[in-house]
């Protein structure tokens, strides 16, 4: 099975609006999911321009799905949901 890909947006908007606090996901995710999930910081993914702008930043993409107002807990929940759906 392909790895589930998590992209943390470190564009200016996301960083200023709270992605700075999501950097610990880079340690948490490999420790929790090992090789099932990959995680990387990213240049601006453009969600702040495409979607409802900066008010819902920071954005994180989990397997292509956008998590808005992202927090560590929300991202982990989204990963769990994706992994469960993939197994079905």
């Amino acid at each position, binding site marked *: 099975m392909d790895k589930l890909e998590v992209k943390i947006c*470190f564009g*200016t908007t996301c*960083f200023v*609006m*709270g992605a*700075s*606090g999501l950097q610990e996901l880079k340690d948490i995710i490999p420790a929790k999911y090992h090789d099932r999930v990959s995680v990387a910081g990213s240049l601006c993914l453009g969600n702040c321009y495409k979607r409802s702008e900066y*008010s819902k930043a920071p954005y994180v993409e989990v397997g292509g799905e956008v998590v808005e107002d992202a927090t560590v807990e929300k991202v982990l929940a989204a990963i769990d949901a994706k992994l469960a759906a993939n197994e079905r």
Partner: protein
Amino acid sequence: MSDSPNHIHLKKEILIRLARAFASDDFEESVRLIPFDMRPKGCPVPYRCCIHRERAILRSRVIAGLGFSIESDDERTSLNAYARAALARERPEPEPLTILSDACNGCPPNRIFVTDLCQGCVARPCQSVCKFGAIGMEDGRSVIDPAKCKKCKMCMSACPYHAIAQITVPCEDNCPVSAIQKDEQGLARIDFKKCIGCGKCVSACPFGAVHEKSQLVDLLSKLKKGREVVAMVAPAIVGQFPGTIRQLRTAMLRAGFSDVAEVASGADETSRREAVEFAARMKEGAPFMTTSCCAAYNNLAAIHLPEIRPYVSSTGTPLHYAAERVKKDHPGCTSVFISPCVAKKIEGLADPNVDYVINFEELGALFVALKVEILDCEESAFTVESSKQGRGFGITHGVAAAIGSLAPEAHPCYVNGITKDSVRQLRGFALKGSCPDCNLIEVMGCEGGCVGGNATINKTKVAVKIIGELLAQSEDLKA
């Protein structure tokens, strides 16, 4: 510091909307619409009783964002008029903080309280442990007489049911100098004769009711007029934005600044002079000296600790030397300090070489509004390179390490954050005229140093790590 919970997110969003309004065709009207744009008709009401209250609070936050005091708002003046007044203003208002009474929860007064968990036990350890006779029984349960209670908390630790709790008032509890207190209506008020600008109340209030008065519009006006505007970035800015500090420099040039200087270069000057001053004082037999770079500490010494004043270094702050140089190198320019905290707003207002002070959150809002992608920027070099020691000034232990690198006789100790306790401790050292096993006291207003300032964007631990990477690439300070 920052995890960007909801109230901080809101404050940042207001600043971004203000900067965007400034760039729009009709600034005044766009400002008037901010509360309506953020809470449009029919939208869910996330925090307050109704959409009208939400908008009223947002309106007040906009007033602070425009740099005005919310306390003096008569509620009749339109945001258009405030926007106009902000553009017309020559100097920012002197008091850097303002309280949004609509958002203030009017938290119940600080006291020790017996909760419903009390079982009315037979042993009654709470009663026997209380030295002040403050605990009685009513309806089979313990009650505390607030007039007798000294808040020693002995009963809290004695209760086997953990039934006794302390009700806290975050702003009051965190203010090291009792400058924020309740008024007759139970709402918080700041006494600016006592306030040292440490910013603890801003960070502590979970309702986001304490605001910095922003100078963002003042800066935007200067940028728009095409004035030569030179930014001076605090050493603590490293790690607060994505990318390297040299990418950040380019991003700031794109945002409209004419030049960007590191205040770390001013810190190098402070270190050199402070090391000389320290050696001279030691030679004269002084028991200890304290550093003088933190604005909140300088205010503390000036207003509340006359005893410590003889021991405070008279060397200027890094900002003082950096601003002096910027004004010399760029005559007639507008100088803007980019700050981690509110205390430096007070210092900036008093320093003739500092025209404005913008905090990290406000700079972030400017980048977002102008769509400046820092990670897309090339690196660009600073005219004056700063040393490793100067760049470490924003971290606890960094200032003493810098002075110690030039004055090996220094034996430092650290005040890592100004609190009620550390104020008492400092007063004790001053009155005794000695500080055990130490001759240099480094005082940081915030825990962790400037990286823990009230307006920082990144978590302290992460920021310290990123600064460490820059320090490893930087040259040592030379005398």
